[in-house]
């Protein structure tokens, strides 16, 4: 590892860096969300499709798609940090993985929730055992399992490493699980393949969707960094620099 990397791998140097980055990410998150929501509400068509048109309610996709993408992406990032932690034995990596998990779980829940509110007027039901819905639900369980295992173990080192191993096992299993849900009958998998692509989406809708997704992404950075700062202070409470930081922040 290069020196710059290892320098910021130390919680005491990363703490102030994260503090400086948080406002930047909040501004970016607020900016892209405002643009995305404005575009989504005022620059997009009022209804989609021909004979059986989707009316204004389709606009929930501006929250739904971003949340669903982030829920999956954050799981991959979380496993990435967990793996870095296991390989290089860096405490900060575990803390990052730890800080990402709640945000990921919240996005998973948001995707399920917004999806069922879309499904009610569109499909006539809040819940359907569609592969995508089911996969998202399982992802939610995987996040909850990670968080539950971590919080059940008192010893921080064992909790970090055990949860990291679980996350990696989860990521190895995820393709198999999703595939088995997608294709419960191996005799006719090809026929079940879902066709969807960004190319077919209206330009304005796509722009609004990508902007809110970007907003969610920046929001994830901001909340993760805030959470990791809290974790750092809790874990390092016995060190002098942490004690000084806490005192300094209490005074200001």
């Amino acid at each position, binding site marked *: 590892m290069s020196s710059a990397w290892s320098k910021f791998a130390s919680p005491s140097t990363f703490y102030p860096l994260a503090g400086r980055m948080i406002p930047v990410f909040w501004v970016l998150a607020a900016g892209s969300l405002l643009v995305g929501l404005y575009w989504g509400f005022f620059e997009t068509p009022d209804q989609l499709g021909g004979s059986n048109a989707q009316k204004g309610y389709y606009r929930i996709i501006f929250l739904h798609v971003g949340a669903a993408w982030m829920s999956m992406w954050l799981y991959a990032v979380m496993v990435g940090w967990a793996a870095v932690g296991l390989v290089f034995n860096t405490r900060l990596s575990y803390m990052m993985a730890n800080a990402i998990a709640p945000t990921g779980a919240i996005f998973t829940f948001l995707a399920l929730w917004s999806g069922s509110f879309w499904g009610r007027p569109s499909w006539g039901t809040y819940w359907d055992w569609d592969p995508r819905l089911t996969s998202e639900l*399982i992802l939610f*369980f*995987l996040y*909850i*399992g990670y968080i*539950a*295992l971590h919080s*059940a*173990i008192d010893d921080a080192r*064992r909790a970090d*490493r*055990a949860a990291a*191993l*679980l996350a990696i*096992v*989860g990521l*190895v*299993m995820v393709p*198999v*699980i999703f*595939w*088995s*849900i997608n294709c*419960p*009958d*191996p*005799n006719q998998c090809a026929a079940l393949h879902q066709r969807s692509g960004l190319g077919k989406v209206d330009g304005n809708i796509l722009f609004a969707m990508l902007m809110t997704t970007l907003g969610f992404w920046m929001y994830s950075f901001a909340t993760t960094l805030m959470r990791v700062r809290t974790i750092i202070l809790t874990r390092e409470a016995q060190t002098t620099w942490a004690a000084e930081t806490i005192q300094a922040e209490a005074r200001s």
Partner: protein
Amino acid sequence: MFKVFWSVLHRDLLLAMRRRTDVLTTLFFFLIVVSLFPLGVGTETAVLRILGPGVVWVAALLASMLALERLFAADFEDGTLEQLLLTDQPLVLLVLAKITAHWLLTGLPLVLMAPLVGMQYHLTDPAIGIMMAALLLGTPVLSLIGAIGAALTLGLRGGGILLSLLILPLYIPVLVYGAGAVELAAVELTATRPYLMLLAAFLLSSLILAPLASAAALRISIE
């Protein structure tokens, strides 16, 4: 190397035979769960035929999972596990022996009990045959994947509930194809081949990967 495998396997089986209630409780749990469903959903033949495969598999998942708690717990409490970790023998092999013992005590009896349960649900004879084959291929996967969870939750308070939260989502592929094969067997017997092939693929890949992960988990839990 095989001597180590055999001695751990022999020891675990011997210990289980000395305390037979533990093994039998799991099997009766399976039987009770399976028998409760007809009481809950009604005893019509048509309904039971549809529900049967799924119910049997879910009950098998739960029974195998309940028994997982005991996989490492007793050895952990009396210090045997620490001694096993300290030996110069490969830990993967020791873990694999313990998993094999677990399967012989919980998975294999389920396979043998399958015809009995199949009759309760009015399954056809070919369907029962496929169910036995699917359980034979699927239950070792449950023990293998479950061992990772058992190793991770070793010695934690509320370990059992936590274990189910961690492991049950990972059981989904086995459940989907295991139950799918039995469902299809009543209609078209030859079409079940891909299901069994997939279950066999899960078995082979988990046979390679799961003991490694379990061994790593044990080292994390005990250090």
